[in-house]
């Protein structure tokens, strides 16, 4: 198994055992900044190698998927989860959006097996982050008058994760492979290690989410376990239909099948205060993330291969 995953387990064990191991907030911030910047930079460098011309249709389809997913999740959360409007919308926003760390684990899963993936995937990651959040907010508040849409839009589009991802993409794209070279030792060579530390922290947090599982009842556990596969399948089908490589298809499935726990929580907390923030976090971090890194990613990869031929 990919060693970085062991770090997640170590975090879980330490957390469950109530060890005093704890990441300072500043270190968590540094690690997540590096994660986002590096994924952006890598993506930008790849994009710089490929003509952007043909990309537009793909971009639109992916965006459409980003708008569709939350609309599929919302009714499920309402019906089966018996969640009120705000909470169902929040779940829709979280799972419609994407998990950067799951994506990173997926990438390292493919690297371990020397499987290449399409250069536009990091771009898709960025594209998929926002739409679901917007849809989620609309589902929760409707087109209420009095809502400061401008302010909200600003807070979403200039949230730090978007800024770092897009900024990284832009810099990587502008600098290109040659220009980035001197930055590689810091951003690229260290990436695996940074991810390992980040997963260690995620394990610690996940373990505390386990505890709040019981407060939330079965739906959280059930949805967290069962939602990823169908969502990822949609992602895989989309990836396949727009002609991605097996690697790329796998990653698009990972994006679709994972739940956000950085951008979405921050945005929803401000935009939909009535939604209980711990509910979707327990789902995505306590259930779906472990499911994806242990079961999901390999599964999605076989689906992708099967689709391709």
């Amino acid at each position, binding site marked *: 198994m990919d060693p970085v995953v062991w770090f997640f387990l170590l975090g879980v064990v330490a957390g469950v055992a109530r060890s005093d191991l704890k*990441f300072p*907030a500043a270190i968590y*911030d540094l690690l997540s900044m590096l994660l986002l910047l590096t994924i952006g930079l890598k993506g930008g460098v790849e994009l710089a190698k490929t003509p952007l011309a043909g990309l537009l249709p793909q971009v639109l389809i992916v965006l459409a998927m980003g708008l569709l997913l939350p609309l599929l999740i919302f009714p499920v959360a309402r019906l089966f989860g018996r969640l009120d409007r705000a909470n169902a919308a929040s779940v829709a926003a979280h799972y419609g959006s994407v998990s950067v760390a799951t994506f990173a684990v997926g990438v390292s899963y493919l690297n371990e097996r020397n499987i290449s993936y399409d250069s536009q995937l990091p771009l898709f990651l960025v594209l998929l982050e926002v739409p679901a959040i917007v849809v989620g907010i609309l589902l929760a508040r409707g087109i209420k008058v009095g809502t400061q849409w401008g302010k909200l839009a600003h807070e979403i589009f200039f949230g730090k994760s978007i800024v770092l991802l897009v900024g990284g993409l832009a810099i990587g794209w502008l600098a290109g492979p040659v220009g980035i070279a001197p930055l590689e030792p810091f951003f690229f060579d260290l990436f695996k290690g940074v991810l390992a530390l980040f997963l260690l922290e995620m394990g610690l947090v996940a373990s505390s989410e386990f505890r709040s599982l019981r407060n939330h009842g079965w739906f959280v556990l059930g949805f967290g376990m069962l939602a990823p596969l169908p969502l990822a399948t949609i992602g895989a089908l989309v990836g396949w239909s727009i002609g991605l490589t097996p690697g790329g298809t796998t990653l698009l499935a990972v994006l679709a099948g994972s739940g956000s*726990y950085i951008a979405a929580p*921050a945005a929803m*907390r*401000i935009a939909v*205060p009535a939604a209980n*923030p711990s509910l979707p976090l327990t789902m995505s971090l306590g259930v779906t993330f472990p499911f994806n890194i242990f079961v999901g990613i390999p599964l999605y990869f076989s689906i992708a291969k099967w689709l391709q031929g």
Partner: protein
Amino acid sequence: MSSEKRKLISIITEAAIEVRLCEALTALGARGYTVTDARGSGSRGVRNASWSSSRNIRVEIVCDEAIAARIAEYLRENYFEDYAMIMFEGDVKVLRLDKF
């Protein structure tokens, strides 16, 4: 020492709303505020600051009675129901009256 009585408002709440809260405080007439990072536990469970969404802040405002009341009113209407938040108020003597 030329000093006078003021209120010291302390708000402990989620870091997520820092920007909006501070804007509101200024809008409500506070001449200033101070923020420190915090963690803690309360009716909404333990918030231990390791993960970004579980961080607390402690916001303090020195102001006169009127503004204090307005802030309390504003928080009750806009935040108390949906956010992890407590607020308490104490009496302080200040120097540099012009500043509060």
